[in-house]
């Protein structure tokens, strides 16, 4: 990036790093003045760089402004003028006003002039705009009026007030909008008068300007003036959004934060304002607001209760807990679910029994999910964790499984002993979920306990769940040798064949030499199940260190199952080495091919071989093209290898691909000759 940047900066002109000579600037202006889309933007970018470079350099900044002013005059193109106005928006001073005044005179350039004038810091800019407004027509007039409003030019109020009564609604609306922004006393009077005139075509813009005025009055401390406007717009005849906005501002204006007004709305029948009132409760600052409005809960309709629960929960204080808790048992499902979500945000261990109760009975999956999420979110850390653990024995199996997940998501490490105890369940789903949670929560220190539970398991079906959990915990020990030590410490005390087999299957997760030796020894164990477990473990060994042992098993297998396991392990290891395709790897594949005994083996072999980007990998794949049982797999392997080596070894790839071509069809003459017929004549 740095290099590219330097090149570009050089392209922008070395002159920028040096004092800019008058001749350079003159040329730059000449070039920029001709700019139209499609030409190089280089002159414009040079000016932008000049703007950056002129920070803190008044002389250069003045020079830059003079250049921009020159760009505003003929013969500069429209796009050049537009660019100059954009720059003047950031740097323009009084010096640029005469040139901008000229642009204001033409409708096509009024907009770009206002681009520069909208934020011009000088009061003289207002005068320039006012003069232009007097004679402007059409869109130019609208533009200038808008800009005067944006500048909050108090002296423009008279002109704008006249314009506000223009017969053209767009012109009148533009002026009213500008007056709303200015919002000084004369502007307020005009807007108040317009409210009384109540012209339907201008109703929205008058309302907007009036509420803008109310905002300004409120900000200046004139609550009474602001409230009077809001009360006008609160009337039922007004559009809903204007009533809502007025209501919202009134709440802020009132000394009690609008509490009384909210109570009145809650007890009233105005369906449009009631939700607004409820939503405002969350922001009330009085201390007893939570208690006061929680007391309103039972009086509300279910849909309103849902909104109220949300509003109260957003206050986050203890006063709302009990009233919301009570609604966990509501007859209305929507209310129940809102309450459950709220207690999850607000509550602690003490609500756990109630959430447990809520979990029982006929509940939708969504509601059960809400309860689970609430339990995960509850405050109280270990006290809440303990409360959930205490519930494990009290709830039915299905709920227990949910609680395991909750404990795992809470990171409740203290639950590990209870979860391990749950793995004794006769319900496989419970055992699986408990082990999943153990895998997530247990730490290295828990490993002996996890292994103890694993070797003591009686249910064969769930043993793999236990092994998966143990592997996850083992992975939390960074030193592989230490992992092996923990496993071996337990193995020396284990005489049970299933238990020992499980422990052997954990050894690949260590990947260290000591563990490999243990497996080697186990391959010669007198017990067949131990030998098979050892081979299974070897077949999942994470690196090539197990190659020779697996190859030995493959060559002299005790059973076909063991051989197949060993062969698959070798194929996997070979595949893992594909990223470094060298002669050694080719040799491994050669040996592997020699160990294949059937079509299934060859298919596995070809699958791995196809990932070798080496020309010598083509030979074994090509040699299998003639074997009908694996012809499609061999073809695919040839194609993949050829594609991978094509760039480096085009000839080898081409030759291999040619071997895939079907033999050329014999000519018609040859076919006829073969059938003993004369060849057909051409027509």
């Amino acid at each position, binding site marked *: *990036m740095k290099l*590219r940047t330097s090149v*570009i900066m050089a*392209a*922008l002109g070395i002159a920028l790093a040096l004092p800019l000579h008058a001749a350079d600037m003159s040329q730059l202006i000449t070039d920029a003045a001709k700019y*139209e*889309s*499609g030409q*190089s*933007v280089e002159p*414009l*970018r*040079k000016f*932008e760089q000049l*703007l*950056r470079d002129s*920070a803190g350099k008044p002389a250069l900044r003045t020079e830059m402004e003079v250049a921009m002013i020159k760009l505003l005059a003929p013969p500069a193109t429209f*796009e050049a003028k*537009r660019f100059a106005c954009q720059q003047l*928006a*950031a740097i323009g001073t009084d010096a640029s006003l005469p040139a901008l005044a000229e642009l204001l005179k033409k409708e*096509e350039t009024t*907009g*770009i002039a*206002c*681009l520069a004038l*909208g*934020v011009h810091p000088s009061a003289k800019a207002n005068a320039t705009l006012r003069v232009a407004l007097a004679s402007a027509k059409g*869109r130019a007039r*609208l533009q200038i009026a*808008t*800009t005067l409003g944006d500048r909050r030019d108090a002296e423009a109020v008279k002109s704008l007030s006249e314009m506000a009564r223009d017969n053209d609604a767009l012109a009148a609306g533009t002026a009213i909008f500008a007056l709303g922004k200015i919002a000084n006393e004369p502007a307020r009077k005009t807007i108040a008068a317009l409210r009384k005139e109540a012209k339907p075509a201008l109703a*929205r813009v008058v309302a*907007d300007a009036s*509420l*803008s005025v109310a905002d300004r009055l409120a900000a200046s401390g004139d609550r009474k003036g602001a409230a009077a406007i809001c009360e006008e717009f609160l009337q039922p005849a007004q559009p809903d*959004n*204007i*009533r809502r*906005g007025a209501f*919202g501002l009134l709440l802020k204006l009132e000394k009690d*934060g609008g509490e009384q007004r909210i109570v009145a709305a809650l007890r009233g029948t105005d369906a449009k304002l009631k*939700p*607004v009132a409820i*939503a405002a409760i*969350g*922001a009330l600052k009085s201390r007893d607001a939570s208690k006061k409005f929680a007391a309103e809960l039972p009086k509300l309709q279910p*849909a309103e209760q*849902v*909104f109220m629960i949300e509003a109260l929960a*957003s206050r986050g204080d203890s006063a709302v807990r009990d009233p919301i808790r009570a609604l966990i048992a509501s007859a209305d*499902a*929507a209310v129940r679910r*809102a309450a459950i*979500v*709220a207690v999850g*945000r607000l509550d602690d261990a003490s609500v756990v029994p109630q959430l447990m109760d809520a979990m029982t009975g006929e509940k939708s999956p969504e509601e059960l999910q*809400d309860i689970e999420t609430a339990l995960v979110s509850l405050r109280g850390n270990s006290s809440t964790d303990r409360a959930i653990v205490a519930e494990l024995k009290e709830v039915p199996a299905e709920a227990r499984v949910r609680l395991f997940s909750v404990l795992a998501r809470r*990171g409740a490490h203290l639950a590990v002993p209870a979860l391990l105890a749950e793995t004794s369940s006769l319900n496989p789903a419970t055992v699986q979920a408990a082990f999943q949670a153990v895998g997530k929560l247990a730490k290295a220190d828990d490993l002996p306990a996890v292994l103890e539970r694993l070797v003591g398991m009686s249910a064969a079906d769930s043993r793999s769940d236990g092994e998966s959990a143990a592997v996850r915990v083992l992975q*939390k020990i960074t030193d592989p040798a230490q992992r092996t030590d923990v496993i071996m410490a337990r193995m020396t005390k284990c005489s049970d064949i299933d238990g020992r087999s499980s422990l052997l299957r954990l050894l690949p997760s260590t990947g260290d030499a000591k563990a490999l030796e243990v497996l080697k020894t186990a391959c010669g164990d007198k017990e067949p199940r131990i030998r098979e477990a050892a081979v299974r473990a070897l077949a999942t060994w994470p690196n090539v260190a197990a190659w020779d042992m697996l190859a030995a098993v493959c060559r002299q297998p005790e059973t076909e199952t063991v051989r197949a396991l060993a062969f698959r392990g070798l194929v996997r290891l070979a595949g893992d080495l594909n990223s470094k395709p060298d002669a050694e790897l080719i040799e491994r594949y050669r040996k592997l091919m020699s160990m294949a005994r059937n079509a299934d083996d060859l298919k596995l072999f070809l699958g791995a071989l196809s990932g070798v980007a080496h020309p010598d990998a083509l030979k074994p794949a090509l040699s299998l093209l003639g074997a009908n049982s694996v012809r499609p797999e061999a073809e695919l392997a040839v194609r993949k290898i050829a594609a991978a080596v094509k760039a480096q070894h085009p000839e080898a790839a081409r030759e291999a691909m040619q071997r895939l071509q079907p033999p050329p069809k014999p000519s018609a003459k040859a076919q006829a000759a073969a059938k003993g017929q004369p060849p057909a004549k051409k027509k």
Partner: protein
Amino acid sequence: MNRRQFLKRVSTALAVPTILPASALGLDGAVAPSNRIVFANIGIGGRARYVMPNFLAQPDVLFTAVSDCREDRMKSAKEMIDKHYGNQDCRMFANFQELLAQKDIDAVFIATGDRWHTTAAIYAARAGKDMYCEKPISMCISEGRKLVDECRRFGTIYQGGTQRRSTASYRFAVEMVRQGKIGRLHTVEIQVWTGPTVGQDKPAPVPPGWDYDTWLGPVQWRPFVPARVNGWNYFWDTGEGPIIGMGCHYTDQMQWLLKRDDTGPVEFEGQCEWPDPVKFMSETPVTAEVHCRYKDGIKCVMYSRKTFKDRYIRYIGDEGWIQVDDETNEVTAEPKSILNLRGNAGISWTNAGDHVRDLLNSIRSRRPTICHPEAAHRAQTICQAMNIGLRLGRKLRWDPVKETFDNEEANRMRHREPRTPWLI
């Protein structure tokens, strides 16, 4: 209670967002027509078509109208909506103000080009419509403030399109940082992609079926140049490149995490590589590295580099880090044990269903959405301040209370005078 206190409450309230599914509001069965929220669309380009199914999938939403300045797009959107409902009822409005005048429409989904977002949103608020509006929500800082004011003034429910606030992976990361799982947060690292460039192109006749004047909207007039119109994202008038296009998603996450939806950083400084002006007419940076800092010292660095798929946000604390990769929705962390605390992976940002649900709940309850205007404006302001700093080539200090820079030029760049007749 002043605005800051109010927003503090709001942001606390939304610390754990409540996204009640339709079924929780008793809307799981057939929804009575009177209970449906009637929507219309303003601006139907690729983004709108991508998001629209998330609205159509809601049982309590009925889409009835579309508006676009391109006839071809409008017709195509009508077909999409009519096909969904199995009727021909979707109305088309070339003029979006006519659409806003329809009394049966409750809310709008705004997915115009960026230049139109604020203007369309403000017009919708004045017309009494609630809305979802795509990000970036504004083209300059003053526009954003006006949007906030107008939504408040009209009691409008507004939701910004930074839907990652409703995405499980991002919420998980935020929650983990808030729970102190990475220790004390000190840096937020953000990566968006390398900014594309647009080659030189000449003015051309406006294609048939295009209303170019409406396309420009509040942008001061300039000639129709196909490459500039198609690559609008990379010209300051109409877009602000990946720093804003994607960056605002991430600054929004950062602000949300820090519970600073009503404030922002105090310092910005960066450097960038500009497009080669001989080859390219586009204006926004190609690559950039921008730093900002909050008053309490928390730092953010945003990189614009690498490819689109390499975007991420990483929270770095003194005891670890957690990262969300946007392309894959994958969460990674150190220590890795943090990841054990995650429930299911949830849906990625590509499914905006939860975000839409939040909007619909808010329209009914009138409580602020999870991406309310002030939050959206403040997240956007960070990116805009970054761009202003790059354009001026200097370090800037920002007062987030007064919303002013310590530099006159930068302050002037907070505003752009809109073209009439658009009043914002």
